[in-house]
């Protein structure tokens, strides 16, 4: 009997933990993270160097947010921002580095 109570308690604590994690990020957190990702992606767009994976992460963030899963949405938005920043860095580096690859 005592053992069953312990299991029940463990299940309740686990569910509470998951709920807390899901609630840890709010809609505002998502909006802020998404805005940062979008700004970085726009910068990549201005350099004509967007990555399809960034676009995928942005879509996944929006989809998760639409489903009310803001924790997941923030995670995808942060991933999108990191990818967009990498594509911007690539474009800046390649602005001169391409010359080293030219057949001479």
């Amino acid at each position, binding site marked *: 009997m005592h053992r069953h109570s312990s299991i029940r308690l463990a299940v309740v604590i686990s569910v509470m933990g998951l709920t807390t994690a899901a609630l840890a990020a709010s809609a505002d957190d998502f909006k802020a993270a998404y805005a940062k990702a979008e700004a970085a992606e726009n910068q990549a767009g201005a350099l*004509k*160097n*967007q990555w399809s*994976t960034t*676009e995928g992460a942005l879509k996944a963030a929006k989809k998760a947010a639409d489903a009310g899963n803001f924790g997941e949405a923030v995670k995808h938005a942060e991933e999108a921002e990191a990818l967009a920043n990498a594509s911007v860095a690539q474009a800046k580096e390649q602005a001169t580095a*391409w*010359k080293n*690859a*030219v*057949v001479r």
Partner: protein
Amino acid sequence: MRRAVLLALALICLAAPPVSAADSANPKADFKAFRNYFTKRFPKVPLKDFVNGPYSMNADLRKQWVAIDAFPPYQFALDKGKQMFTTPFKNGKTYGDCFPNKGIGVRQNYPYFDAKSGEVITLDVALNQCRQANGEEPLDYTKDDMAALTAYMAYTSRGKPFDIKIPNDPRALAAYQKGEEYFYTRRGQLNFSCASCHVQSPGDHIRTEVLAPAMGIVAALPIYRSEWGGMGTTSRRFITCNAQVRAVPLKAEDELYRDVEYYLSYMSNGLPISGPGARP
């Protein structure tokens, strides 16, 4: 005083960044270097065979191609293209009225630099300009009707050597240089440039594909690709390449794509038109 001037000049020279060959576009020198690179790297491939892409690099693949070419998969497109090309628009004019020599055997002269618009005009763009000038809707630039029309025009030009000109116009030179830059610039999450595959690795495999050499690569376009299950234009080829390296592709016939085609076509000068082609 003279010593001070010399010192100042020396300091300016030291401060200036080193000038490399790519800093100022030199199409003639680029062409020579490009040709030397490929002919030295693949000494057993006859010059004119480079236009056959992967089949010039791999004997087994070539055997398959020869067998397939007995019943070429682009034949339906070719027939459709001929019919479209010869059928008058609603106003009674035809595509032939928009082109030199009525559009027969002219593929090798495209793209060209148009001094009026200051832009590179590809054959595909010229076809849509023709349609619009005659009151017709433009075609999609990636496949179907556009691929059929360009297939027919390429077919009537088979064997004619590319003859791309870069006029003495700084805008033409700038377009050429932008094309060259795009070709050599790494992009996408996989960090590949067009040159990564088609200059550094022709003949090598990417999964089951044998990579084609950049020299002559545009001569076979448009192509039937088994991977696509249909025909595709030059734009479709560029879009697919971009997507494969996880880059967001440009729009079909974007100015940069046209510039790349201009650059690659110039690099193929003297090589025969072989399109339409068939690729795995």
